[in-house]
């Protein structure tokens, strides 16, 4: 019976955490981008540096009319944002937040594979939204999104294969434990050191998977009026927004877990490790998320052909070579074992 209570508590915690993570990241992005552009960003809502800005936005969205265009395919149109959000939800389930059973939402033995698989469902949401909107620009945006997400899904998945080879397991908890036992020349280092090429590919592909600048061709405000999302209003629009930020948090957390050691920190004694774990993971996740925001305010948008070329001609070949080099190293060099 206790196991059911545990599952219920974990599920509830997850339900609370996702909107919170989306709000925190959304607000950080508003503020960080503002300061990078010599602005102050939101300052009014909630008195202290506009911390309540996104909560106010959310409350406003709830009060807006739910307009569905006459020409739209109603059921597909209504389902698309829900699918995007649920896909972001399911990724969260496997992120290990600390050592000890209590902090894992659950430890699936194919954790990494599962995370990449469910995050790919969001492609369907975007494609459905673009298709059902009865809008030429949305359709083009949906197709661009589908082509882009497919092209960058491959480097993402193939970069992660090299990590699996090195760790010898697909479980995210197992990968963290493998990193805890890994060292180069006696110095304990996370996988970002031996897998640096993979890490760079993974982060670039994550940006593309999230359709964030410089890979925001599907959204392209100036030409496609936010592409697949043009016809959405009120709460359904908010769902896409939440799915983007929750997805950003989830992918950053996965990258932090498989490359930066996740909840593990070197030299932390076992008795306080369960308490340090979640803090370490959130800090590492925040670091990667900050980098994604930084990229957004630094680079201009890539053209459709440029981003396809970059995925197929640069990232995929490099990630294939990365797999081969890693597997040869694992078989022939004993230092890499561990």
């Amino acid at each position, binding site marked *: 019976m206790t196991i059911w209570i545990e*599952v219920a508590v974990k599920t509830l915690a997850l339900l609370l955490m996702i909107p919170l993570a989306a709000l925190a990241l959304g607000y950080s992005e508003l503020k960080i981008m503002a300061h990078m552009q010599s602005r102050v960003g939101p300052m009014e809502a909630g008195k202290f540096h506009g911390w309540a800005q996104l909560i106010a936005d959310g409350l406003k969205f*709830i009060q807006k*009319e739910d307009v569905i*265009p006459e020409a739209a395919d109603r059921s597909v149109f209504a389902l698309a944002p829900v699918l995007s959000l649920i896909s972001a939800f399911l990724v969260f389930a496997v992120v290990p937040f600390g050592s000890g059973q209590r902090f894992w*939402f659950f430890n699936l033995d194919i954790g990494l594979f599962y995370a990449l698989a469910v995050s790919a469902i969001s492609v369907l949401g975007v494609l459905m939204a673009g298709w059902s909107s009865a809008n030429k620009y949305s359709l083009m945006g949906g197709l661009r999104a589908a082509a882009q997400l497919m092209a960058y899904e491959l480097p993402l998945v193939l970069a992660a294969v090299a990590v699996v080879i090195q760790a010898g397991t697909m479980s995210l908890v197992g990968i963290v434990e493998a990193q805890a036992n890994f060292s180069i020349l006696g110095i304990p280092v996370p996988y970002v050191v031996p897998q640096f090429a993979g890490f760079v590919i993974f982060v670039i592909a994550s940006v593309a998977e999230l359709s964030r600048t410089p890979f925001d061709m599907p959204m392209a405000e100036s030409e496609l009026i936010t592409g697949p999302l043009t016809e959405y209003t009120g709460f359904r629009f908010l769902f896409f927004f939440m799915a983007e930020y929750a997805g950003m948090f989830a992918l950053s957390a996965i990258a932090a877990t498989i490359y930066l050691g996740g909840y593990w920190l070197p030299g932390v004694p076992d008795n306080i490790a369960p308490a340090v774990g979640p803090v370490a993971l959130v800090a590492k996740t925040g670091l990667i998320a900050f980098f994604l925001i930084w990229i957004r305010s630094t680079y201009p948008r890539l053209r459709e052909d440029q981003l396809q070329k970059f995925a197929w001609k640069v990232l*995929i070949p490099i990630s294939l070579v990365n797999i081969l080099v890693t*597997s040869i190293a694992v078989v022939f060099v004993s230092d890499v074992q561990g």
Partner: protein
Amino acid sequence: MRVGRWFAKGDGLPSYFSQYITVALIGLAAIGMVGFMLGAGRIIRPSNPSADKSLTYECGVDPIDGNWAQTNIRYYLFALLFVVFDVEAVFVYPWATMMRSLGKSGLVEMIVFIGILAMALLYAWKKGILAWD
């Protein structure tokens, strides 16, 4: 209760099974929450439909010629290429997990497998599929 006993066990197939039940539960909870949010919103938000409002917005001007638009055929080719490599990824993952125990023979087999797929990519490259004119 059979399911209850599966949950109570700590190892082997039963716990394996319980992990997937948890996934299903989280999925159901997510659907529940999304449904609740949409349902609660229905009470609060206004609903004043009109003919003009339910017209496709597009870019603010009344839409011309419905929602069909011409697009580049390359999207289709990219989708085909994607299927080749995504299926590859599905086969590579189990190998990657078992890499250590398969050793050198596993390595050679995977080099052959990835080599054939790399040739497919090279072929597409030479054919000019990856370039946009």
